[in-house]
């Protein structure tokens, strides 16, 4: 497998706190990789470093390298905006733009490219919404507010918005934690489909979810990478005792 994304000796500090320690990881292309671990283990922190969201936190300091197709996204010449165009992100809580319609939400990121023809926008909106299996549910009310949708629909809308930008990597930060089981199931099915086109990294505190959706799993504990392997192996025959303790529910 060739690696789409590679973390090399990633260290993240917040002020005096050393949140992520020497994490090195490789994410193969067109796979879903899950990052699991107890709360506060730094899994979201790692995820957010991959599209340079920490640039928005003045106290955060990221060292080490993150390679996207062998190019370091933390290179000084790299603009974080360009990074985020290629590495999209879906958040824990659905965050559609409340003042925009469903249609405008989906197209909001794509439109940043500049003037886009109406027909092209229509096409992007439809294909993005189809990809997240939301098209049939909303095609009659594209112009109504995104806030009228249910929580699960909002989250799928946010995924559609991310997909519309046509990124290469999609990061997901506990995307189902605020959703009911049925909505969760839909998102999980969606994740499985997304990997045909994208490299997906998902952070989750739900181990069943990690087992269901991911091809590879990384276990983080106290800011350190304990174990990284194909998901099946992690959940059936982990190498490290800490991993075993965690997945069998002995702590965390």
């Amino acid at each position: 497998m060739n690696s789409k994304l590679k973390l090399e000796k990633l260290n993240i500090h917040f002020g005096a706190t050393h949140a992520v320690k020497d994490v090195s990881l490789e994410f193969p292309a067109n796979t879903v990789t899950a990052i699991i671990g107890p709360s506060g283990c730094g899994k979201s922190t790692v995820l957010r470093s991959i599209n340079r969201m920490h640039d928005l936190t003045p106290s955060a300091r990221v060292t080490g390298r993150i390679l996207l197709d062998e190019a370091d996204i933390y290179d000084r010449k790299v603009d974080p905006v360009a990074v985020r165009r290629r590495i999209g992100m879906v958040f824990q809580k659905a965050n559609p733009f409340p003042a925009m319609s469903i249609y405008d939400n989906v197209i909001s990121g794509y439109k940043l490219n500049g003037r886009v023809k109406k027909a092209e926008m229509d096409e992007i909106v439809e294909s993005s919404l189809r990809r997240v299996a939301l098209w049939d549910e909303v095609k009659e009310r594209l112009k109504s507010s995104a806030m009228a949708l249910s929580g699960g629909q909002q989250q799928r809308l946010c995924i559609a918005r991310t997909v519309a930008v046509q990124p290469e990597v999609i990061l997901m930060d506990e995307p189902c934690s605020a959703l009911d089981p049925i909505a969760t199931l839909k998102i999980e099915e969606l994740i499985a489909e997304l990997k045909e086109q994208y490299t997906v990294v998902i952070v989750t505190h739900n181990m069943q979810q990690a087992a269901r959706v991911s091809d590879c799993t990384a276990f983080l504990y106290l800011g350190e990478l304990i174990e990284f392997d194909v998901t099946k192996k992690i959940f059936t025959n982990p190498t490290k005792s800490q991993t075993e303790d965690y997945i069998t529910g002995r702590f965390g």
Partner: protein
Amino acid sequence: MSDMDSAPLTDRRMIKGDAIFKGVILALAGSILLILLIMMFEMVKESLPAIKKFGGRFLLGREWDAVQGEFGALDFLYGSVVSAVLAILLATPLSVGAALFITDIAPRKVGNVIAPIIELLAAIPSVIYGLWGVLVMAPWLQQSVQPWLIEHFGFLPFFQGAPYGVSMMAAVFILMIMIIPIITSITKEVLLAVPVSQKEAAYALGATRWEMVRMALIPYARSGVLGAVILGLGRAIGETMAVTMVIGNTPQISLSLLAPAYTMPSVIANEFAETTSKLHASALMEVGLILLVVTLIINIMARLLIWSVTRGDTGARA
């Protein structure tokens, strides 16, 4: 309420103390309602002679003659509306820009210094702005700005006539300077109330900072910012001292910004202590009543808008 249950039931003095206390605080709270009602009632009652005598003519008439007993307030209405609206038009982009600078561009340390300074400036009394306006700004306008405008733009109706210094222009500038701190402070609060998740959503889509402002901040905070602006408008319309000191206090309607003008609060400030007749006093009261109604409408609108964004937590500070 659990208070009665937990007070010992046998001690009558204690129960009586509570009853008296409750009565007192109830009366004091009620007195606030009463004050407002009395104020409204007085304003209406005292305006009645003028309302009866002039009717709608009062709003459209341009004669203001205490000797002849003829009163029309159009010139003051014009002065108030034009000065306040122009000041708002100038102040809004600057204030919103400054607020965005504080919340999203300046390093946090810089923002944390600038924001309280701007809030302190909002507390400077208007008479001091007026003092500066009449002794520093108006002479400067008269000697430098206005002659230059006349020379280069004198063909426009807005810059015709002699440079007096004290003028509509001076009033607009001083009002602008005075309301900028208010609009900036409230806009800052409103912008800070925008959830981080909204900003992150925009950034994660690959937006630049400005695109984030346009996509996430402005739409979310729009009604709150509008509220801040309208609150500024209310302030500008009701502002008395600073405007009275620099506007020239000449009742006229002139397109030229260089010409002196007159506002509703200014005519009250200048004439109310020395009215020549009952009718004169009543006419001034009616001017006050118009001012009161206008500011009430403006303020209620502004509060509702700001509240819709921040859910009431800046309402009282504003």
